[in-house]
């Protein structure tokens, strides 16, 4: 079974995003960029399926700017077999909407015919939590989102999902879309030899136009602003002082 893993290049999770002075977005020039952490988890899971002999090939796909090549090289260094980049924007500040990403992924999937897609549940930049679900809809496939455990059993995937009330286990017919939550696994670091090897693995490049998908946004970004700030309050010296402050504030 071929497993396809979409990966996104995003601001590194350790970097605090700064809103641009003109209110048009977040400043991404000269900011450290990395693979979306949830996508790393997805790549790791796909590689583990290959190591277990369940998957035969792992294909990483990224949609975005040319620089997403680096993100794909990371996936290849972790252990993906080959990569596909769909260039859909020139400016690093352009975020392709999940609906357009899903349409592009559908076009790639129509060609690649994977038996399973594992995506991250959410990108930590736009925080939409939507691409996997939208892709499943467009393909007419089943979906198992927010996965903390995946077992492939013949023609189905048994997936444990992290939900508001605790955990839910479902079975979904293959081919299907699974989205990875934080506790699915701990992604490996790529070793130096594997980073070198990754440079030689195939990385195909296409454009959104090649795939015949219109990526123009449905949501116009009117403005981006900083949230209302919160100031540090006071330090209390003792538990007694804390109790009296909380009583004064009327919260206990």
């Amino acid at each position, binding site marked *: 079974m071929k497993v396809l893993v979409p990966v996104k290049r995003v601001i590194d*999770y350790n970097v*605090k*995003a700064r*809103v641009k002075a003109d209110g048009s*977005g*977040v400043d991404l020039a000269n900011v450290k960029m990395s693979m979306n952490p949830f996508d790393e988890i997805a790549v790791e899971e796909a590689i583990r399926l290959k190591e277990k002999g369940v998957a035969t090939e792992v294909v990483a796909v990224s949609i975005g700017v040319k620089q997403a090549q680096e993100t794909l090289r990371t996936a290849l260094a972790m252990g993906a077999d080959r990569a596909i980049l769909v260039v859909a924007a020139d400016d690093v500040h352009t975020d392709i909407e*999940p*609906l357009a990403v899903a349409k592009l992924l559908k076009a790639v999937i129509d060609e690649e015919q994977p038996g399973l897609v594992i995506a991250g549940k959410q990108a*930590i*930049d*736009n*925080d*939409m*939590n*939507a*691409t996997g*679900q*939208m*892709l*499943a*809809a467009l393909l007419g*496939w*089943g*979906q198992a*989102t*927010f996965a*903390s455990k995946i077992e492939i059993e013949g023609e189905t995937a*048994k997936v444990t999902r*992290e*939900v*508001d*009330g*605790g955990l*839910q*286990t*479902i*079975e*979904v*017919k293959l081919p*299907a879309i699974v989205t990875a*939550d934080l*506790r699915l696994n701990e992604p490996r670091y790529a070793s130096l030899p594997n980073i070198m090897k990754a440079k030689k693995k195939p990385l195909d490049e296409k454009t959104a136009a090649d795939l015949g998908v219109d990526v123009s*946004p*449905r*949501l*116009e970004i009117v403005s*981006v*602003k900083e*949230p209302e700030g*919160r100031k*540090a*309050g*006071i*330090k209390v010296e*003792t*538990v*007694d002082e804390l109790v009296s402050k*909380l009583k004064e504030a009327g*919260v*206990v």
Partner: protein
Amino acid sequence: MAVLLLGEVTNGELNRDATAKAVSALKSLGDVTVLCAGASAQAAGEAAATIDGVAKVLVAEDALYGHRLAEPAAALLVGLADGFDHIAAPATTDAKNIMPRVAALLDAMVISDVSAVVDADTFERPVYAGNAIQTVKSKDAKKVLTIRTASFDAAGDGAAAPVEATAKADDPALSAWVADEVVESDRPELTSAGRVVSGGRGVGSKDDFALIEKLADKLGAAVGASRAAVDSGYAPNDYQVGQTGKVVAPELYVAIGISGAIQHLAGMKDSKVIVAINKDEEAPIFQIADYGLVGDLFATVPELTEKL
């Protein structure tokens, strides 16, 4: 303008708080019709009918909807979409699973985690772990939204709106429910609680997490946790507060042994009063705390529990 709101129904019961918060976010947009779907959903529908601002309730009662699987729930919503300009749900894990699927089926872009409604086409939502607030204007004919419940007060009670049954949609038969693992608790629910006490990695073990629970019980609070505490097995996954967990905005939030990573702050920084207890006076959590206590939690938390 008319709004179709997916009510939050779990095991036949309406989550009134989440549903009523979504109603108050949406009622300026037009008549709100609430859809309650479930293996049993009539009682939930009748409860939803009494939320102030609800014009009508539709009940889809069928085993197919018993576990809120995304494919049948999305098919049901899409089947009902005609005549509605907005299709929305409170941003629970169920809705986050279902609504993007609905949007794609309608060829619309979902607008997740709406924190303010500006007008019928324009919405605010947090991005980058809440470090920026984006205002977006949708060009889609139908808007599909999820509502960040922590940003809205729950609508009150009103006169009962009419409740009607609605037919089920075709079963896409793509997935099946296997099991739920739900920990029953008498404590308040995290996202609706007025007070929340959360523990982090500093708590050190599952056994010692009882310190957090004892303080929470003394305060009548819900219990939360950081990702590190959940990953380490001190607390179950549904306790996680943050960018990728639950978003809370209680009157009082007590963060114990939590450093204050941006991903954690994203889920609690709109709380009214924040207390931090941490042995590291440099911990970033103190930069947003109203009251900070520098000290060892193993000494200060039991003392606090006793003195409250």
